């Protein structure tokens, strides 16, 4: 970055003459060193996965979760500064609960992503704050079932005026990625963190846009992609954490849950096997200096 030292990177919300906000770019740098996160939007659900680098042998395996639940049907995982990610999740939960108190219904995923994008963007505008050091992947399933209003105890009159259009399709899977700038897009497959390049290359091979990938296959792919993305930092141990949200008829009944242990272990086994098959490929040298999460 040639513009470093010109003074335009010392304060948040200040543009450089060529139209860049350096504080935001530095936040992106923090993300690029974080553990790889992957989200896959399948036809009947969404999978989230994260590579957790084991920073100490004294940490209890399986504890210290990195994927969080928001409301019942949304999962959030983030790369970058873990405490920033926790605050982001806390805000997401507040937004979901405030939506419920206003509208007496769960927040649609698109609305949640919009609220969170706006929140993150606000942290690029003021000199008293710094941008979020995380890129978050938000996955969820908006219920396709006819939902009552929260607290509704009856169905009301069976006759009389109605305003509902019948036969419309509602709900389905959703996947969004929110960056430190506040930018957010919806994705078929999203990856962030250290191994994002390799992960994105793998995601692109899956032809997710055609909507043929099943949730079960998505779980196996997500596990494999995390293993592929970990190739460049092979010297470090890592733990795989995965969660999923299925359709209302599926295994999680529209809720965001951890992937059950047996399915996770099976997916990890398959991922390791796939990696062994690729071993003849020359392993590329680890990029840059080794960085702590």
């Amino acid at each position, binding site marked *: 970055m040639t513009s470093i030292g010109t003074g335009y990177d010392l304060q948040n919300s200040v543009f450089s003459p060529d139209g860049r906000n350096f504080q935001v770019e530095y936040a992106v740098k923090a993300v690029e060193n974080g553990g790889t996160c992957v989200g896959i939007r399948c036809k009947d659900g969404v999978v989230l996965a994260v590579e957790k680098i084991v920073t100490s042998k004294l940490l209890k395996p399986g504890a210290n*979760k990195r994927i*969080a*639940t928001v*409301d*019942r049907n949304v999962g959030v995982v983030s790369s970058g500064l873990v405490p920033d990610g926790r605050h982001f999740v806390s805000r997401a*939960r507040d937004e*979901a*609960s405030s939506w*419920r108190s206003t509208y*007496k219904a769960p927040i649609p995923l698109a609305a949640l992503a919009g609220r969170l994008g706006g*929140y993150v963007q*606000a942290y690029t505008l*003021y*000199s*008293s*704050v710094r941008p979020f050091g995380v890129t978050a992947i938000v996955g969820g399933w908006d219920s396709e079932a006819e939902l009552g209003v*929260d*607290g*509704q*105890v*009856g*169905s009301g009159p069976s006759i009389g005026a109605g305003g509902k259009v019948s036969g419309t399709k509602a709900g389905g899977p959703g996947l969004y990625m929110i960056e430190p700038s506040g930018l957010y897009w919806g994705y078929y497959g999203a990856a962030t963190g250290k191994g994002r390049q390799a992960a994105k290359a793998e995601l692109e091979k899956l032809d997710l846009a055609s909507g043929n990938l099943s949730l079960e296959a998505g779980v196996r792919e997500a596990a494999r992609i995390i293993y592929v993305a970990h190739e460049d930092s092979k010297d470090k141990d890592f733990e795989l954490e995965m969660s999923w949200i299925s359709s209302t008829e599926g295994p999680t009944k529209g*809720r965001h*849950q*951890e992937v059950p242990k047996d399915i996770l272990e099976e997916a990890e086994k398959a991922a390791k096997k796939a990696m062994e098959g690729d071993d003849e490929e020359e392993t590329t040298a680890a990029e840059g200096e080794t960085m702590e999460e």
Partner: protein
Amino acid sequence: MNHLPQAWGRPRDDVYGPYDASYLQSSHPQTHTQQPIVTGTSVLAVKFKDGVVIAADNLASYGSLARFTDVKRLRPFNSRAIVGIGGDVSDMQYLDRLLNSLDVTENYSSEGHGLNARNLHTYLSKVMYKRRSDVNPLWNQMLVAGLDGDDKPFLSSVDLLGTTFSSPTLATGFGAHLAQPLLRKVADDESQVSDVTREKAVDAVKECMKVLFYRDARSLDKYSIAVVTKEGGVELKEDEQLENQSWAFAETIRGYGRTQEV
């Protein structure tokens, strides 16, 4: 610049002064609920050896008017707890939303075992007692049915004063007078619960629902019934019809507006 997000976009206190909250005052005293408006009547429940059966009819009355006839007053919480609510229906809807948000926050963490019926009853008793202490009670009496921390049957009551009460059989409202004595024939004390089968408990509750429909003018012959067991979780049926009614006894009633014997 205030870095608190909730202050962003608002008039600055240092420029405009703090907001004058006196504008929010009204000249009227603050009032609270004095009486329930739309009401549900009795809730009945019986413990048996493997679980609990609970029932309530589907009526919400507006005074003596049978206003809503499809109101579900048994509110399932999770796979091992259900709450039956009598009293004010709008307060019941508030409680339903409260329990919904409690369930959402309880499930943020996948660790632990979640709330059981005993935990839920304790929580509700604190809510009800807080509200009565604020002289703003939630006008309900509730039965919490399900399984406790040892997966043993659990049944307990909490009312608008925050009073709690436990027994092998419980009934709220009109049922406390009419159904409770009948239910005590099934299980008078805790030691008899182990002899009560599921069928016996369900039959007793159904029979009491029928007696209540005969004699409680604010009741309905459409009702909801739920059985909570460790194996089956919460089995809730919300559209049941009272069967084998016989109004023959009505012939023998004298007085109460009925024509006197000639």
